């Protein structure tokens, strides 16, 4: 069961565990909105070490405002970056005002 749905405000966990991670550093700790649920996939953090990657993890495409990600962003205010994030890296967040 997926915990989040399209339109939900989420924040990426600010964590630095060791191992093979698909959550880029630049997006950790940032808040965005779920653009869509992409399905459930084997966890790459487990697959990387020869394990089965189960249970499957919901994967989301999360949209972030560039000005949220880079406070000194020089482009237009409506610019965004979409990043795929597995559910265990996300927590609920308050809607951005």
């Amino acid at each position, binding site marked *: 069961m997926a915990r989040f749905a399209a339109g939900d405000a989420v924040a990426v966990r600010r964590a630095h565990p060791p191992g093979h991670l698909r959550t880029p550093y630049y997006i950790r700790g940032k808040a965005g909105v779920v653009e869509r649920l992409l399905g459930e996939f084997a966890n790459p953090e487990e697959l990387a070490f020869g394990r089965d990657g189960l249970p499957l993890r919901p994967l989301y495409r999360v949209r972030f405002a560039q000005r949220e990600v880079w406070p000194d*962003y020089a482009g237009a205010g409506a610019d965004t970056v979409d990043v795929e*994030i597995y559910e265990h890296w996300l927590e609920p967040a308050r809607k951005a005002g």
Partner: protein
Amino acid sequence: MTDHNHAPPRGPNGGLSHYQTMELAVSELLIEKGLFSEQKLQGEIAAMDARSPETGARVVALAWSDAAFKARLLDDGTAACESIGIDMGPTRLVVVESSAAIHNVIVCTLCSCYPRMLLGLPPDWYKTANYRSRVVREPRAVLREFGTELPDDVVVRVHDNTADMRYMVLPARPKGTESMDREALAKLVTRDSMIGVGLAMTP
């Protein structure tokens, strides 16, 4: 997936790099154990080398001229491409549509993930730390270096291929192409326009 070459490139000191040695060791072991054959390996390399942006251009031209196909492509890129006979392998495709109001560009900040089944091998610059680190942070400056100048009221959306999906841009259909057939349209669709660093050519 790695970029295979028949003669593996040399590492910085003329010898094989760590990962090249590892790759050769693993492929030799797989062949020795009979899990894979040299012919099968060479066949896969040849098939990968044969893929080119022409496949992606065919998909774009069809989407431009067939509204029902375009709707299917945006809804489920993998299924839509398979429905016209394209082998998608394990690729799960998301197609993002650019328009006069929104411009999309793709990157893989972690490595070099790329919609290879539709575009072939990625260009060398796509894999550089320069492109990967800058396009996500200052996309407009990077686009300008590719000759793509966008007004401030066009929203720029960067798509980072960090996990299981691969992204392709459906570029905006250029003006003055209303009477063109699919074959002529496909010729306007460049690789860079499907990555999003460029626009489709105007006739």
